[in-house]
């Protein structure tokens, strides 16, 4: 996923209401009315959140005449998961090196001047 789009996904996930909407959709698709229910929010406000989620590819909306169900899309969340794992690996490896560095320098320098 190009970095620009990942940024769009992150921006969409930055809002707690939108994260709550996604958590709800993880248990199955829902109408806008259903999604609006837990929040004391106007329909335009919820629609605004849904547009952000749709633009980021996190949800898709059905096109049936009577209702347009919102559905969670797994792809972008998988990309977020991959991002988390990439950085977890980066830091764990860095911390292995930090651990090694701290041991080496302590045996060389001792604790002189390190305590404050």
């Amino acid at each position, binding site marked *: 996923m190009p970095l620009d789009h990942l940024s769009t996904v992150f921006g969409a996930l930055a809002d707690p209401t939108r*994260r709550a909407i996604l958590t709800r959709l993880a248990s199955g698709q829902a109408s806008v009315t259903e999604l609006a229910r837990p929040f004391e929010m106007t329909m335009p406000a919820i629609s*605004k959140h849904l547009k952000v989620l749709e633009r980021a590819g996190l949800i898709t909306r059905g096109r049936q005449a009577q209702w347009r169900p919102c559905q969670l899309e797994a792809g972008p969340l998988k990309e977020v998961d991959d991002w988390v794992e990439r950085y977890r690996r980066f830091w764990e490896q860095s911390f292995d090196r930090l651990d090694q*560095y701290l041991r080496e320098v302590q045996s060389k320098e001792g604790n002189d001047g390190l305590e404050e």
Partner: protein
Amino acid sequence: MVSRSSVANPTKPELIITRVFDAPRPFVFRAWIEPERAWHWWGPKGFTTLFCEMDVRPGGAWRMGMRSPEGTDHWKQGVYREIIEPERLVFSYAWEDAQGKPGHEMLVSLTFAEQGPKTKMTLHQTAFESVESRDGHRQGWTSCMERFAEYLAATEVVAGSKTACSGEMRKRP
């Protein structure tokens, strides 16, 4: 070596790693903020540091370059937000593109706690800053106000009295 990673909320792009180091806290803290120390460890296995510069003060910039075992160079940069030696360090973090322009900004928060002669360090990285963490920082104040306006617009009820101020905010694109 003791390491623990939390499994965070799957909708939140964040990671938390806790690690205990067999070294006193001031020493571990300084390994992060002194370039001649950070040089030796910051980066994945097999990478070598090319450049490391740190202006360690709130609002100060840092920049690092490293080379992969395959020979590709990676540059990253950021700005320090909080420095409370030896217990807390917060900075932004972004990779640079080929032109040196920073990409998506992430936020890294570190806390260091004494555990006898050892140090328990916790890293918390997020893909975005919360509105709360931006409060009080000059940088990002405008976007904070925009988000607050959006929040007000989203939570106002259609029926009921509205001030002229929230009316204006509703007209914002």
